[in-house]
């Protein structure tokens, strides 16, 4: 979990995963290559040139307009931290921040976030230093399988910023959009409660 979230650094778990799943196709897109603009109407429907600002960095991509932000992150930018659970807005595993607000990447078309700042779980840590919420999830053992965890953490950070992490009940209510099939809920509540004052100090 303490791996630096940078797919371009040395053999990380994520790097190995994307390598095994066809990194040759995915990685060149990280290099800010500008695709040629589409020429015809049919081409325009097939692929649309867009610039996505993810974790402070612009990515030039050419995507089918149907591409959700979640698929753009996972399949085209090798940012697989955001998870695909239900893919229909019911589980919260894909939660990311757009202009600082938590949203569901699975119900957001990538085309609609052009010109906006997207933050994913990969953008939370400062270099080797985990975000206080990430550290709190580890400290409190707030997961079992870990699949929902990136979404939980993105939601939890927003929950604190919104001022909703004021009591156990409020945390439960404002974290209700993130399901955990392992039912680590008590420890998630404990982690959010613990991280909130640390975020205020950070």
């Amino acid at each position, binding site marked *: 979990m303490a791996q630096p979230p940078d797919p371009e650094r040395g053999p990380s778990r994520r790097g190995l995963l994307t390598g095994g799943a066809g990194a040759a196709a995915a990685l060149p897109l990280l290099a800010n290559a500008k695709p040629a603009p589409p020429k015809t109407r049919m081409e325009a429907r097939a692929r649309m040139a867009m610039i996505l600002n993810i974790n402070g960095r612009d990515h030039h991509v050419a995507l089918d307009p149907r591409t959700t932000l979640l698929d753009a992150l996972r399949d085209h930018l090798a940012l697989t931290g955001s998870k695909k659970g239900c*893919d229909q807005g019911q589980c*919260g595993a894909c939660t990311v921040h757009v202009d600082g607000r938590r949203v569901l990447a699975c119900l957001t078309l990538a085309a609609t976030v052009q010109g906006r700042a997207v933050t994913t779980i990969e953008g939370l840590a400062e270099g080797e230093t985990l975000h206080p919420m990430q550290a709190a999830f580890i400290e409190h053992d707030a997961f079992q399988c870990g699949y929902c965890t990136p979404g939980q953490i993105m939601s939890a950070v927003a929950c604190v910023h919104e001022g909703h992490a004021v009591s156990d009940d409020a945390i439960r209510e404002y974290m*209700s959009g993130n399901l955990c099939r392992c039912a680590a809920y008590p420890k998630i509540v404990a982690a959010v409660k613990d991280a909130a004052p640390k975020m205020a100090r950070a």
Partner: protein
Amino acid sequence: MRPFHYEHAADRGEALKVAGAHQGAAYLAGGTTMIDLMKLDVLRPTALVDINALAKDHSEIRADASGLKLGALARMSDVAADPSVRRDYPMVAQALDLAASPQIRNMASLGGNVLQRTRCPYFRDTGWSACNKRHPGSGCAALTGVNRKLAILGASEHCIANYPGDFAVALAALGATVDLEGPKGRRVIAVEDLHRLPGETPQVETTLLADELITGFTVPAGAWARRSLYLKIRDRQSYEFAIASAAVALDLDGGLVREVRIGLGGVAAKPWRAHEAEAALRGQPLTEASAEAAAHAAFAQAKAPGELAFKPELGRRTLVRALLQAQAMEV
């Protein structure tokens, strides 16, 4: 998801123009209904007109002496958090707060939320051939199927889908109006007249004209607005649609009901205003007995086939509790 043209509209005029240029175009705001139902192949727009840039002109949240003005592109979470909405229109803030999840409330626009589609499982699952909403004339699988969440008021033998939302129920209760703009100009209609009952044409859900765009809502001021609440009964405590809900606003004169507004959610084919229940209470003392009489009036026309048999009683109890809770509010 089927292919579509994606078009970004910079303003209202451009949105109308682009929508008019594509047969089968749809507007895209938060996308929480649209993208979901496109993935399920229930909705198949040929073009999506992204109207999120219209937020610059249509996201106001303003309460003054004449009422509450809300832009159609305001997001549910922003309206729910607005101090004047929470203080002066608690029913509206609660209906928004109790809906969906924090992420979805951040995404969903008010206009899109009001137009959200039914959660009827036979509408959402194209594996079922019988759905008069998806395929007019194909029948209604819900009539004899899994239907405990569906409508007991305003339904027809062609469709028993319920309207799933909360905010529109509050708007209907408070007599709000909706601002529309289309190729033929602007008009204002009552929120209560925006949705249609299914009748023989459940595929036609609203009275919107072709390419017409919702630009805003106006909730008229009223002495009842402050003493108002939204009571939502659900299968789980959070992040769930209403199995029954009541939007209640009261203007009390001592123990007497000077004015009352009642909306019902989860139980009806459209955002439901319970005029009969209001009439039963107006000028009467508000007691448990009079609240129960009003609740009986509200559900007098209910039809509850199959699994829905429990729902009239749940709806009545929900309304009685909401009325008594509103009476006990300190305003």
